[in-house]
Each structure stands twice: as C-alpha cells, then as structure tokens.
C-alpha cells in the first residue's frame, strides 16, 4: 500500500502535526514501507478471535467513588507556557 505526500499532509492535518514540505516525500516512503510490513497481518485467519486491547483486562479494578482533595491548580499550572488568573492562554478562538 503506497501513501502519497498528499496522504501524509492529510493525516498530519488530522493529528495537528506540522510537517515541513520537503519532509512529506520521505515520510510517504517510510510509512508506505511500514504499511507493507503491516499488510502481512491481512493474510492471517482471525475468524472468531476476540480482539485483545489490554493484557490486564481481566484484573482492572475501580476505586471507591469518594471525594478526595485534588492537587492545587497553581501547582499544576506551573509548567504552562502562558497563563492568567488560573486560565491557560491561547490565541483568540471566537472572533
């Protein structure tokens, strides 16, 4: 399966991932060869096989639904690039 540089640009847009124009072709080549590798999965008979999402699926547990103190907002916002009065600042979204 061959991906084109247009395909890569489309996926990159979905992933909000900036790709330099001259990197699109090499990426198309790399990802196409990865898809060729992955393609061999199609030949395997998996009729009736339950998909395995997680090795711990049998032992997942839930804690009691009790309120507990959460971390302070200020501490958690400390690493934010731009913030003001407890909010994260981003460019204007609504005109």
């Amino acid at each position, binding site marked *: 399966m061959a991906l084109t540089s247009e395909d890569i640009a489309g*996926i990159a847009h979905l*992933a909000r991932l900036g790709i330099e124009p001259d990197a699109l072709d090499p990426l198309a080549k790399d990802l196409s060869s990865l898809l060729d590798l*992955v393609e061999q999965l199609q030949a395997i008979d*998996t009729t009736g096989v339950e998909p395995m999402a997680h*090795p711990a699926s049998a032992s*997942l547990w839930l804690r009691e639904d009790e309120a507990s103190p959460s971390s302070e907002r200020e501490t958690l916002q*400390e690493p*934010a690039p731009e913030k003001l009065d407890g909010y994260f600042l981003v460019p204007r979204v609504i005109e």
Partner: protein
Amino acid sequence: MHDKTLTEQASLLKARSISSVELVDHYLERIARLNPDLNAYLCVDEEGAKSSAQAADKALAAGNAGPLTGIPIAQKDIFCTKGIATTCGSKILQNFKAPYNATVVDKLAQSGTVMLGKANMDEFAMGSSNENSFYGAVANPWQRDRVPGGSSGGSAALVAAQLASAATGTDTGGSIRQPAAFCGITGIKPTYGRISRYGMIAYASSLDQAGPMARTAEDCAVLLQAMSGHDEKDSTSSTLEVPDFTATLNDKLDGLRIGIPKEYFGEGLDGDIADAVHSALAELEKAGAILKEISLPNQSHCIPAYYVIAPAEASSNLSRFDGVRFGYRCENPQNIDDLYTRSRGEGFGDEVKRRILIGAYALSAGYYDAYYLKAQQVRQLVSNDFTDAFNEVDVIAGPTTPTTAFKTGEKTDPISMYLNDLFTVSANLSGLPGLSAPCGFSEGLPIGLQLVGPVQQEARLLNIAHQYQQITDWHKHTPEGIA
C-alpha cells in the same frame, strides 16, 4: 567502590564500612569525568543526591536501614520528578518540570535510594538505539562508536560504565531488555501491571511497563521489590500480592522445564549469538533444567502487530502535547490551529512524527478494522501461543536480540531498526515478564539471554538468572576505559 554490585555495596553501607555520602561523591566524580564521552546522563542532581545521602547515612546510623538505603541510582528521564527537569528525551519537554513525582520515583526514594540524576533515552521511548534523543546519542561503553540500544540506552550505558549502582528503565517493545543485552547488564520487564505507571510518561499504555536495570539478577530482585505494588493512581496496576523476589533466588533448577522456541533460531539471528545462547542453555541443563523445543507459531506476526498497536496508542497519548498546558509552545501562533500544529511540528522529532502519523492513519475511519482491530486479534493469537507453551514448559528462553550492538548512524531505514525488537515485543503484547542477562561476547560486544515467564512469575526468572550467574561470570566482565 563502583565495581561492587548493589547488593555488595548495601552490605558495606550496613556495616558502616562506607557511607552513602562517600559512595555518592565517588559516583559524582566518575560522572563528571566519564559522562561527557558517554552522554548517558541528561542531568545530575548533585545537591539533591548529597542531601538524600546524608539522610540515608542517618538512617544507617540509627539502624533503620532497608536493603536499598543509601544506594545511588539513576532514573530514566521518562519518570516525572518534582522540581527536576523531565524531558523524555524530547525538545517538546525541554524545560518541563513536573509538578509531582512518578510513583516509581516516590517508592525508590522511600526505600532509601539516592537519585544521582536522569538518564538519556530515545524520544518518548521510541527507538532501539538511543539515537532518537533530542539531547544526542549515547555511546556504548564497550565500543564507543556503537549504540547502547534503546529506548533505555542511557540507563544501560551508565550501569555498564558503573556511573550508578543501578538504574530504572521502561519497556514497551524491548526497551529494557535490548539495551541490557547490548551493554552486558541484567534487566527485567515485569508482568504488565506489576509496577505503577503513574507519572511515567505514556508511550503505548497497554504495553508500557517499568523495571530495574543492574549488574546482576540479585540486584534487580532487590530493586523490583521496591518498585512493585498496587497503586490506586493507576487503574491497570495489579492488586495481586507481590512475592518476595529475593527469597527464591537460591532455589535449585532441578526439573525446571525450559522451552526453546524454534522460531527464535531462524534466519536473521547472528551465528555467535545462537552459539552463546545454546551454551547458556547447556549450562542450565547441567544445573538440572530440562530443555524442550517448542513452537510459537505467530512469532513472525509480532512486529507487524506491534507497529500498529503501539503507534495507535502513541498517537492518542501524545495528543496531550499541544503547547497549551505544558511543554514547548511555538513563537507567535496566528490562531489555535497554528499553535497546535507548529508547537507539535517543532517540538517532536522525526521518529515520533512517524509513529504519530502511522497511528493516526491506523485509527482513522475506514482503516480502523483493517489495521487496529486486526492487530488486536493477532495480539490475542500471540498471547494464546504463550498460554499453550506454558502448558508444557515453565519458562521460555532464547536470544534477547538478533544482533549485537550496531554502529551509531548505521541503521538509517526505520524498518531495519524495528527488527531489533524481533524477540522482545511478544512479551509486551502478552503482558508477560521478560528478563535479559549477559551470556557471552561476540567481537568484544555483549550478548543477552532472554527468559520469558508466565504472568506474575518474575521470581522464577530472577531465580534462573541468579543461578546462571552463580555458575558463569559473563555478568562480571566490564568495559575498558571506565577505571
């Protein structure tokens, strides 16, 4: 002092023959001298280490010491450390200081270890050579023009070069075992859920698992004990009781049934590695084990399944790096889309971008069933192979890697890099414990023996590796130029 194992150092500390402050100062001097050529440490917390060492010495003097009190270790830079930079090998987290500690960091600190610093790694743990670190490649201490493996390459190199008593690593497709093999040390990836993933930056959440890397299986057992246990902050963390990993180290191997998958000895395996692994198996047979050829019929499907599942999970996990809440933000964003797109485009390296893209593609409408769902079904088949095998044998043994450490810059094609994980990814897909221990050399480069066991059977793997290390001395070899 640095040539002693962690367990030997702990005895000396307990006997008050050395102090933790002396040990820490000794390593700090070695790091200052030897790390510039290796690039194994990304940062050294001299002040923090000295004050933790003083606290450890007080506990030792008061007789409150545990088996790890005063032992200097390094943390892979994937673990969040409060107030100390946590980069995950990425530019996007260059100036990131986590507001909290990972559970692994807290647990090891509570057990009295002293953190010397943070270890270099492939960006977001994506890589098998440590060449994907934004902060530069790491040199293999055995031959400096070779890679140490990855993604826990810094951890492996600094343990091999004796720049700490031990280090932590994480393993999503082989990232503890492969670098352990390349650097001639011992490392174990425990059962999925054994160690909390809280504060461990996520790559592929259904595969990621932390573990110790050290000089011997005995050292790994002591560290694994301190790192393991249920954590209510991680919903996948196991509630099962943690056994005493050191209690069974000296068990005899009489009657132990070791399965040798014929698929592990096919095309692509280096001849010297095959010979070294066969010799190791012969040693274990002499020690009482019974060898049995087995088959893992879906072995060849592991890499393709992994390279759908891991990138799919990564594309989802890495969406949190958006330039808004933490990490790198691009200059002068024009609008919110521009902010996301450029922050991520400028902050992530090439391999991370490849995996985000392939993951997003595999999860996208129209391809989900053909790729992601299919890979999960194959994952079940891979897991079933192990279930069947463990009806016949107690553990499985084989090579950790198909080749020894390759030269830095040698592998430019991503697919050939992915094949490094040929023998290791199946344990991650199935959630099983896997261990690598040194079992020989080829042209001066270490070779790793891999053991894989049923779920929760880490103690058995450590027992076998410890017994092997009683009758062989491969783990005692050290690289030149680290005096």
